[in-house]
């Protein structure tokens, strides 16, 4: 199954749910769907196109909204499914119901971007410490780390 066949089959199965599709290089497919069609698209990719392996999920801060890219791969190709959610209402559906192995990447998304992954089986923090101040999401572009001023005990004030 080559890239063109995969794109054709995905278009036939998902119809107008596919908003954009491109094939910039050999074995690299980029596809965009609406966030409400995400779970359906992942289901179709897994069941009908054999993309059962999700390599990782990348989040991107695009200013007004967040872009989320799900990187899938199988023996024939590599497919990147992207979706967008507005920053004012950053909710995205969990894909763990279809692919259980995506859990750690979804937890990482929640930590790093402050996205809310709905119906996630385990919503605890993954990489940030337990005492991390709420509302700080390091990979958002407007977040800057400020090192607290160093205090040496017994120092002359």
């Amino acid at each position, binding site marked *: 199954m080559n890239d063109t066949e995969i794109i054709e089959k995905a278009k036939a199965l998902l119809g107008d749910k596919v908003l954009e599709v491109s094939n910039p*290089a050999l*074995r690299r497919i980029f596809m965009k769907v609406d966030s409400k069609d995400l779970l359906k698209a992942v289901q179709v990719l897994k069941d009908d196109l054999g993309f059962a*392996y999700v390599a990782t999920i*990348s989040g991107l801060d695009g200013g007004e909204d967040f872009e989320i890219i799900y990187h899938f*791969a*199988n023996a024939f190709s590599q497919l990147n499914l992207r979706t967008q959610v507005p920053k004012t209402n950053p909710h995205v559906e969990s894909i763990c119901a279809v692919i259980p192995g995506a*859990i750690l990447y979804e937890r990482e998304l929640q930590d790093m971007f402050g996205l809310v992954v709905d119906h996630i089986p385990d919503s605890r*923090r*993954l*990489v940030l410490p337990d005492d991390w101040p709420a509302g700080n999401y390091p990979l958002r572009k407007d977040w800057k780390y400020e090192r607290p001023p160093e205090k040496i005990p017994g120092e002359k004030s």
Partner: protein
Amino acid sequence: MKFTVPIGPQHPALKEPISLRMTLEGEVIRDADIRLGYNHRGLEKLAEEKTWLQNIYVTERICGICSHSHATCYTQGVEKLMEIEPPKRGIYLRFLVAELERVHSHLLWLGVAGHEAGFDTFFMYTWRDREVVMDILEMVSGNRVHYAINTLGGVRRDIDDLQKKKILDSLDFLRRRSEFYFKIGANEPSFVARIAGVGRLSKEDALALCAVGPTARASDISQDVRKDDPYGMYAEVPFEVATATSCDVLGRVVVRVKELMQSYNIIEFLLKNLPDGPVAVRAPRRAKPNEVVSRYEAPRGENIHYIKSNGTDKPERLKVRAPTLANYPATVVMLRNGFIADIPLIFAAIDPCICCAERAVVLVDGRSGEEKIVLMSELRKQAHERWKKAPLKKDAVWPF
């Protein structure tokens, strides 16, 4: 009655900070939980503030064992963004180092596996032989750990005919040794018995939990980025994907030994067909706005980097996923219903050292919580019964 035993994040036996929380019923693990983040360095944020060239050295420091993997994965992605093609000799040398790194990493892993299985001679042998590879790497790149041989547009150092001959001579020695390791299983039944049936991961689970690398291949999934999505010159190199069907630690050892053999063949092929010419081309400072997904088969499994450029000399976003993270959900499944004594084996590189098995005569029944006093002979009988039901394969043989 269930106990939850925390191991780490700071534990004398752990080599790196990770917190494992084991829910135990007697000495059987009923559930395992992994808490990460004790070693999070904010590298993806840092990368956004460094230039394309500086980031090679940042990504190289993600890992100390497969340092070349991350740097190469990043470099080949950025080369695509910059629309430059490294010269053929540069590519051959880059992946020569990559395969040498796989050899050193697998030899290291084999030693640790032998050590955790209580076969320390194996550990000492493999680590002695690993020094041969480390010396080659030092000769080729100048460094033992962070080779720093990659640059945008090729590699930074060339090799000469004398070095080529030295590597080929060492390969003969390594090949002989690895064949010996492959045969060792047949003559050492206690080693095979210790690792067979431990840490089972069925093919279905491995697929559902997106396991990668030798872990997936030992569960009979023929998944290798070098074959599925050939990068560099892997499309021209003849090699086979090593798999095993036993889905346990034995399978993972076998896959790695077979991969060693494949790597020696690849190294020999690269050296014998090394093209002439320059090793690098000049790279521009900036990259046009674009995005790229770069994949690389590291010794531990698939590395994937997503890189987005915005027209400046710094990346807009660099997303890194190392293979170990992908294997954590599968590790929880491997640990479940295993024994405490198998934790180090399953975790291989981690030695959590729990040995608090009480040798008292007051037994607490795991399910009812009822306490009773039993005779030593009765206890022995119970232990024998339990051993019969253990998931170990007693008649396991090394697959030739």
